[in-house]
């Protein structure tokens, strides 16, 4: 087990974004950290310019690497990009694009996550104890397929466009989701603990479960008869099929309570 502790050094300009796609488990397999590049605005730096690095232990595979980030990392972007195995723990908040293209391993964020958390994820697990901003578990502009696999669990609230273009995998939000969660989804599952607005807009397939109130359900969703029980959940969910603006949609919304779009 190799543990890499990265503590953010004193920052001159706390608002300047940092791009740290190299902060991922694979990078730390060898011991030479002087070559690890990181970017602050348009300046190329080495990791140690921005972080104090403290390593302990050995690892032969990414699986055995555990990175712990502390200090103010709210502007540090692309951490865990393309990660295949291992663990990353963020003690506080994390910047945009955390866990981009991830296919394995575990990222735990104890604070809040900025937008595009787990973008285009293929596998692995992300757990965010705080809130996630916009486009959590979504795709990239112009691509039809967004997240394809893996699990994202947000204990707080999520912002707008949660799981946009979702194709596979699962996103769980314990709190509220914002506007249009699951827009354009064609697969996968979204489970929202509390409320959401305009869920599943234009969906063709996939499942969106809202355990609170689903506000502004679009007029092109059809309410199915009776109440449904869903797996491990409590009973009594309304079921909607849609989005019938599409040709032959197979999407489903399950809501504990709902309001139709007025």
């Amino acid at each position, binding site marked *: 087990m190799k543990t890499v502790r990265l503590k953010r050094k004193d920052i001159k300009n706390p608002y300047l974004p940092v791009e740290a796609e190299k902060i991922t488990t694979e990078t730390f397999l060898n011991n030479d950290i002087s070559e690890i590049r990181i970017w602050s605005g348009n300046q190329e730096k080495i990791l140690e310019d921005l972080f104090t690095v403290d390593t302990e232990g050995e690892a032969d595979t990414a699986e055995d690497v555990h990175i712990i980030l502390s200090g103010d990392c709210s502007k540090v972007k692309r951490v865990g990009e393309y990660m295949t195995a291992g663990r990353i723990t963020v003690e506080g908040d994390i910047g*945009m694009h955390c866990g981009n293209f991830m296919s394995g391993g575990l990222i735990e964020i104890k604070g809040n996550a900025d937008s595009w958390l787990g973008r285009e994820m293929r596998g692995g697990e992300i757990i965010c104890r705080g809130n996630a901003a916009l486009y959590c578990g979504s795709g990239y502009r112009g691509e039809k397929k967004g997240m394809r696999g893996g699990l994202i669990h947000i204990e707080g609230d999520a912002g707008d466009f949660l799981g946009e273009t979702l194709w596979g995998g699962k996103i769980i939000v314990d709190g509220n989701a914002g506007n249009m969660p699951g827009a354009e989804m064609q697969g996968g599952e979204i489970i929202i603990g509390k409320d959401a607005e305009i869920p599943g807009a234009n969906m063709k397939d996939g499942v969106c479960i809202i355990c609170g109130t689903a506000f502004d359900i679009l007029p092109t969703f059809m309410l199915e008869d009776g109440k449904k029980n869903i797996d491990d959940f409590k009973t009594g969910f309304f079921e909607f099929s849609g989005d*019938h*603006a599409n040709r032959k949609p197979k999407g489903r919304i399950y809501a504990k309570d709902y309001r139709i779009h007025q």
Partner: protein
Amino acid sequence: MKITDVICPFCGCLCDDLTVTIENNRVTGVDNGCALAEAKFMHTGRLNNPIIKDGDRFRETGYDDAIGAAADILKDSERPLLFGWSGTQGEAQCSGVHLCELLGGVIDNTSSICHGPSILAIQEVGHPGCTLGQVKNRADLIIYWGCNPVEGHPRHMSRYTNYADGFFLENAFRERKLIVADVRKTESANLADEFIQIKPGGDYAVFSALRAIIRGKGDILPDYVAGVAKSQLERVAKMCLEAKFGAIFFGLGLTMTKNKYKNIRNAIELTDLLCRHTKFTITPMRGHWNVYGSNEVMTWLTGYPYGVDFSRGIAFYNPGETTAIDILAKKECDAMFVVASDPAAHMPKKCAEHMAEIPVIQIDPHINCTTLLSDVQLPVAVTGIETPGTAYRMDGIPLRTKKVIETVYPNDTEIIDKIYKKVLEVQKK
């Protein structure tokens, strides 16, 4: 002296049939133009000389001094933001892109506060469009959605839609129907055969409903959608299906209201669906006379139409992250370069507050709100009046705007090129 076939550098209509009267090197009359054109051509106030902020005052200075000051600010910037671009010539936009690449900064144009959402939607589902002459000659159904051309694009209806001559329409005005959709009854709505009044934020639901009706699934809809009666929606759907050529035009009523780019996406998907039954096109009502040009230029040079981040030496595009409002609101940029736009006047307070804290360089002929927040401003010739340059109309047609009066001022391209060279020079040291 009269100059004909003059192109108006004001709105996205880019009317090219103006005749301007010149006396003593001043425009004294504008024929065929609308009130906006007259105001632009005949305006006389301007910033006379470059200015540099000195304490809490501005001092006038020469171009070389101002260029040097600009280069000094930009050369050490770790995240410069180059913003504006829609009110200047294409040649300057190209220079701007190269400057941004050199600086490793972010370049964004006013699309991000206007039709950026339209572009996002186009990137998801494409753009079934056409040039305005196709609409003029063929369209028997015109739909204005979330826009008010009578006030925003005054000659749009007479040059391109309802009141224009049409090759295939005998009695164009009578043969065309007009539908206007908006949250309130505007001047344009007063002219409509069918006015759809939608509850604010309800456009998305209305588009979805129309798509369902056209797919024959109207039965699942409730009696009212966002305040619009289902019977009206069915009537509108019927008008669309019976049209020989329908043209939809939309504006900020869709791009800047709830659900933003998803509204446009839905409108485009509706257009696609209608194309399977008849001929339909959709066109965004671009605001500035050359904002589409800035999209075109940025695309052929960088690959992306706006919001491009070169800090890694490679183009990265992500609206919401690489766009001006977000960067300013999050206080990310440490310097700003504004060309041909007035962000201090148009952007949210938080953005202007950050602009006040960072060095700002402005290239603009006029004194505007942004001037108050600038550290350096260089006045330039007005494109389309004092200097020629390329512009792209709202439908993508490129035209060359003219020079109708003489000027002593350099144009945007010259100044930006000089700043580029100066930055190269000071970077080497």
